[in-house]
């Protein structure tokens, strides 16, 4: 039975759906010339949907008999997702217009992924989860190959599609196993069934579900697609992939782990610990040899996911809150870093992606160089930048729940990661200039870059707000 409360609880999704469909018609009838208009209207739609989150929260937490959850957790994650999606739309026009690839489909596809991601983080049932995930994925495959004439972009799309389908299959297999052995696809139903001990079949289901989800958050050992897709996809799309879907997939993983698989905590904790440490180590070591900045950011995202998972490994409300805070700070850092990367253009305005081309940037473009330095030091987790606080929170949660050895190992591995971030700063600040970049960046890029940099530098003042929001989000899962 569909009641009005349920509909109001999914109001943000309804707004996004209606907005996306209308804009698609605008694009279909108006042609490519409407791209900038559609861009602006898409951002507006995301803002309206963001405002509607408060309405969603008021009519939660359960909607459609528990299929959808509109709780503090989903609202927190969606706020992040919408903000990141809006940033990805705003950053795009300048990039695509140089290749005259500016088309209105881009923002519309992002709106559709946003709907999918919203469903992922508010799923209360394995099937809602799967539908949301696929909705997000399908739009993402298209986005990855958005530059049709570019071979790398098509390759990225294809790789993403093939491996993504495989992961979806694994996930679906896991879901079916869980359903078969617990008799329910609802999260709370599964949790009840797991409460009386975890059987072999249930364990298998759990492992397959986590494997499928690990693919979506690109955690080791299911990370192989990430560097290729990040490198091949157009840079604004990479910006998007590195931010919003990461939040959605992480939110989904956390919710499944806590709400559905909570009673099997001891079983998945080992998996999460392994995946976390493997991601941290692999992400750090493999990034060292990279020469392409987008590839490097891919390994960086693998590395960051590892850190975020440490909060989940703790399995406590504080740990979940830490993971969610981590994702918030990570999104700001990532978007800021990509706002810098998008400004890497040679004198003719063509995008450049090699790290070597950054040499001596601090002497030609001081502001851009400072931006890079701030985001790289922040990702390396060096205080006083906000990235340190993200790492601090997850390790603090791990220590609080007795995982001191995990925390010590993880933090020691973060030193390896610091090396490749330092390498970029070294290239920018210590090396002699080689080729020149174009004289100044786009206005939108600079505004986003500055906003992110301010948050990263003065972020500690946001601590009380962030702590409260993430604690409320975490509390709604327990």
């Amino acid at each position: 039975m569909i009641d009005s409360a349920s509909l109001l609880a999914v109001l943000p999704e309804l707004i996004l759906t209606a907005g996306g469909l209308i804009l698609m018609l605008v694009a279909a009838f108006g042609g490519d010339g409407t791209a900038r208009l559609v861009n602006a209207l898409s951002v507006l739609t995301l803002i309206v949907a963001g405002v509607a989150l408060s309405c969603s929260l008021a009519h939660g937490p359960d909607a459609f008999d528990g299929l959808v959850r509109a709780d503090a957790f989903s609202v927190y994650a969606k706020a992040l997702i919408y903000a990141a999606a809006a940033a990805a739309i705003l950053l795009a026009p300048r990039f695509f217009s140089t290749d005259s690839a500016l088309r209105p489909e881009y923002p519309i596809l992002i709106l559709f992924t946003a709907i999918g991601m919203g469903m992922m983080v508010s799923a209360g049932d394995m099937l809602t989860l799967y539908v949301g995930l696929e909705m997000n994925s399908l739009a993402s495959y298209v986005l990855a190959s958005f530059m049709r004439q570019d071979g790398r972009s098509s390759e990225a799309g294809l790789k993403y599609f093939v491996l993504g389908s495989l992961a979806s299959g694994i996930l679906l297999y896991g879901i079916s196993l869980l359903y078969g052995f617990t008799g329910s696809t609802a999260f709370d139903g599964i949790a009840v069934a797991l409460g009386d001990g975890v059987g072999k079949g249930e364990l298998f289901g759990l492992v397959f579900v986590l494997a499928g989800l690990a693919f979506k958050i690109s955690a080791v050992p299911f990370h192989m697609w990430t560097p290729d897709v990040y490198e091949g996809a157009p840079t604004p799309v990479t910006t998007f992939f590195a931010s919003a879907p990461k939040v959605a997939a992480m939110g989904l993983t956390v919710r499944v782990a806590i709400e559905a698989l909570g009673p099997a905590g001891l079983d998945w904790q080992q998996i999460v610990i392994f995946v976390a440490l493997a991601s941290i180590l692999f992400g750090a070591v493999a990034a060292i040899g990279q020469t392409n900045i987008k590839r490097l950011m891919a390994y960086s995202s693998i590395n960051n996911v590892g850190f975020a998972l440490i909060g989940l490994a703790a399995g406590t409300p504080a740990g979940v809150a830490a993971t969610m805070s981590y994702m918030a700070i990570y999104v700001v850092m990532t978007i800021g870093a990509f706002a810098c990367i998008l400004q890497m253009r040679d004198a003719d305005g063509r995008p450049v992606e090699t790290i070597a081309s950054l040499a001596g940037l601090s002497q030609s473009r001081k502001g851009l160089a400072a931006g890079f330095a701030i985001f790289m030091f922040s990702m390396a987790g060096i205080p006083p930048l906000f990235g340190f606080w993200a790492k601090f929170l997850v390790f603090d949660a791990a220590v609080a729940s007795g995982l001191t050895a995990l925390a010590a190992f993880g933090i020691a591995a973060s030193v390896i990661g610091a090396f490749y971030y330092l390498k970029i700063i070294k290239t920018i600040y210590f090396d002699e200039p080689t080729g020149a970049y174009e004289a100044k960046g786009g206005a939108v890029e600079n505004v986003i870059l500055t906003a992110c940099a301010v948050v990263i530098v003065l972020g500690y003042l946001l601590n009380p707000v962030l702590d409260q929001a993430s604690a409320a989000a975490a509390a709604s899962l327990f």
Partner: protein
Amino acid sequence: MDGFPILSLMMAVPMAGAIACLFVGANSARWIALIATLVDFVLGMALWANFDQSGGGAQWQFQEYAPIFGKFAWALGIDGIALMLIALTVFLMPICIGASWNAINKRVGEYMAAFLFMEVLMIGVFTAQDLYLFYIMFEAGLIPMYLIIGIWGGADRIYASYKFFLYTLFGSVLMLIAMMWMVHEAGTTEIPVLMAYNFDPHVQTWLFLAFFASFAVKMPMWPVHTWLPDAHVQAPTAGSVILAGVLLKMGGYGFIRFSLPMFPEASAQLAPLVWGLSMVAVVYTSLVALVQSDMKKLIAYSSVAHMAIVTVGLFAFNQAGIEGAMMVMLGHGLVAGALFLCVGVIYDRLHTREIARYGGLSINMPRYAVLFLFFTMASVGLPGTSNFVGEFLALMGIYQASTWVALVCTTGIILGAAYMLYLYRRICYGEQVNADAAAMPDLSGREIWLLAPIAAVVLWMGVYPESFLKPMRPDIRALEARLAPAAPAGDSKIKMGAPKPAGEAHEEVHHEEAPAHGEAH
């Protein structure tokens, strides 16, 4: 000065200067930096003047507290130990800016900004009363120092900057985990509370080792000292001054503020480890210093040896030792800073640090030779200079704990005299074999103004150390009391026997008075 946030102001002034420097031209940046550091110096002296040294007042003064960061707070406050280190910082900073006046001519604004930011963080480290605030300040210093070494350093600067950064970062992160554990255990992030908290002695060992990893690297202690010679050699002159003068003191400050009072049992248990490493450092690095052909490297190795005297003094667990360690830190901060400035003076003229490229400078640079000789003697520990007081007290302190350690470490003084005098002989005496070195002009007015104040303070500290010991004494006494239950029994304690004839008893009385000697100045 009640309620006036002077400590925050001391951080705000250089911070504002740093931001301003980024947006102005080279010359304005120099003046902004100089004025900001001088203002901070004046504030620092005001701080000292208003500090209650009577010992009857509160241990923590000028406290500020603002819980604006959620899990931790902007909590500041100083005791006498911190006061002295802050005074050292604000004293050396204007000198550093002056030393860079002409030597740095590319990207001056960024350079000055990095230095001023460094000053903010150093004052932050010494004033932080919140464990996490301390960590943030402690760790953030890596960023400006990395840039200073990497941008304005010598030929091998990139390797040195990486090594500096990664070594110190690796040391610190384990400390962070220990801090988290402590905060969860004790339920507070306030340093004064944690200093009085009794952690389980079994856990203390682990906590101590985690902190030790950080402070030993920062200090630096043998065998994790190897980043220091590289960093020193490659850093610009002022970078070396601030590195030797203040940054190394963060390690000693860490021991005195965290390791000793928070983990007294573990400190006592692991003291032999510290002693052993220090003994090796004193002898080994002194010998290494003896064979250096690069002036800066030689002074860098001598810093490692001097810092080892600091650690033995600290781990003597008595007042003389700890007071001595503090005095060595202050004295070494001045003298090593001055020696790096002396190297900088001739490096600016000839652009080489090879000792063999100089010689006979006392002929064409007499004023330079006099000042250089003075600082050489101070580094050797000549009575009447700052280092004598510190080394004497530290060795006297360790003698009460372990005579063997005292014996080995004292050889460091002799070796110190050897390598410093050998260095001085090769640079200032002998034939003027190199024509270009013989043609160098004597000190300019600016250079004299950089070195003379340090020389004056070094003398002051050597002749009347009470000015510097008095503010610290109550805090060190409190620390000694905190350590007393755990302090290891010394091997030089007098065994009280049955009363004996007056002539023999005299010797014993003399020995017992020895620890009180430091106060008698």
